[in-house]
């Protein structure tokens, strides 16, 4: 299905031991340690040509630990290939921001910070994007109530 089926092989050769393949129905997917995000992202952009970061999404797997998963959807404009790279990051941890690598990741990373509380190290402006600046908590977390205003 994919236009670039060997990409995971090449990633495994370049980063031995760091790539965990994940079965997915739609596109090549792999899990990497969070400390490898910057190196893998730079390699994918500069040497492989994955120049578009289509999306950065955060997922809350509460009560699993590490709590969050950051999912990068990448795109190769010439091969028209897609790639999904994921990493797990804990509540008290930070993951390297990919905004310096793909400027388009700026707002989605801010969104993941705002709604889930995932912190991205090296982001130029990691502030809330949707919620008011003085909001407490991160609404998209699984332990955040869906509705209800407390009346004291």
């Amino acid at each position: 299905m994919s236009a670039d089926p060997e990409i995971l092989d090449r990633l495994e050769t370049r980063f031995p031991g760091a790539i965990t393949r994940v079965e997915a129905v739609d596109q090549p997917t792999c899990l990497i340690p969070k400390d490898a995000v910057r190196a893998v992202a730079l390699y994918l952009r500069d040497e492989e040509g994955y120049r578009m970061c289509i999306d950065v999404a955060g997922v809350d797997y509460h009560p699993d630990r590490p709590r969050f998963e950051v999912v990068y959807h990448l795109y190769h404009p010439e091969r028209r290939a897609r790639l999904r790279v994921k990493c797990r990051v804990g509540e008290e941890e930070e993951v390297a921001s990919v905004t310096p690598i793909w400027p388009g990741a700026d707002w989605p990373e801010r969104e993941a910070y705002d709604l889930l509380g995932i912190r991205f190290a090296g982001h130029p402006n990691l502030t809330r994007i949707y919620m008011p600046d003085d909001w407490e908590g991160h609404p998209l977390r699984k332990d955040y109530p869906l509705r209800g205003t407390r009346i004291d």
Partner: protein
Amino acid sequence: MASLGPEAKAGEMPPDSPFVRGAEAGPELSEETMVINLGPQHPSTHGVLRVRLTLDGERVVDAEPVIGYLHTGFEKTAESLTWQQANTVTDRLDYLSPMSNNLAYVLAVEKLMNLEVPKRAQYIRVLFAELTRIASHLVWLGTHVMDLGAMSLFFYTMREREVLLDIIEATTGVRMNPSYFRVGGLAYDLPDGFHEKVRDFLKEFPRWMKMYRNLFEDNPLILERLQGVAVVSREQCYAYSVTGPILRATGVARDLRKDEPYSSYEEFEFEVPTRTEGDALARFWVRVEEMYESHKIMEQALEKITPHGPYTTSDRKVALPPRDEIYGNMEALIHQFKLVTEGFSVPRGEVYQAVEGPRGEMGYYLVSDGGPRPYRWRARTPSFYNLQTLPLMCRDGLVADVITTIGSIDIMLGDVDK
């Protein structure tokens, strides 16, 4: 004069008044920049977009979009609904092209479930996806040209959009937010007289376009306001995750309908309009030409759609059984009860599915834990990413061009703020 206090003398200002400083500062004044807010309540921002403009006279030093005024927590809401119910949330993202959003979402769920959809339903989906593309581009055309100062086109495009909304209303019962596409197929079959209605529209459409073109094609004022304004390069588009007409206006023929065909798009013949200049005028023409291509696709789709036939999957674990079966068949009654009370389950896994919406790549990233509700429901909305290029496009331009730029990005605040 009477309103001034008895001590105040006419023409006298306090020494720290900015007016006094300005008058004495002379040439130094030009070094000061001014920060002003455009919006969030400004008609040209097409919603509740706020742009923090840093100006040096008429020149834009920086333009920072401030968003979130329309944030409604769609993702949180959708994660509390069943897979089928979550479809209603997708309508409300980009409310000018609800069927495109529907399509991306139902395709994602169907991919995760490995569900086959009848061909007839796929063609109807294509027809409506293109119909909403035209409807959405009509609103863009009217408002964009109105932002440039030409009022009358807006009335015409809105009038003609009404014809399209009538077709949607006749089919689904509502004009906006129809949720017509469902996981497995469509919500209900086409109404009587559907083919005639669409055929009338298809016949009229080229005539409308001709009239619109008469209004803007050779209009030097419009061309001058668009040409060379809000330029982005191809690599900037890649870097900033820009998709859709903005990317195609830089010479890239990236169209998911061609690259990653879904819903039987591979059976349709159409072109992908591109331009190479990357400015507002290039985007303008890309969108105008896209409307003709959508018209072409609709014509082909209408030929393929038979008046009668299956409109949803026959898998009773997903689609509701027909009424007459429910009353006469125990099995069907159980299925109906289960589907209505708890919905269907989707196998554990994750999926990303995107379609070519009017504004670019509209995608969903869904994670299922095997239950009847999405565990993670992530919408990759095109306007959210495209709007990030606003500072890039506005810098060193004029204030008046900011309005042109916003219109030419064609943002949809429901899409941006989610």
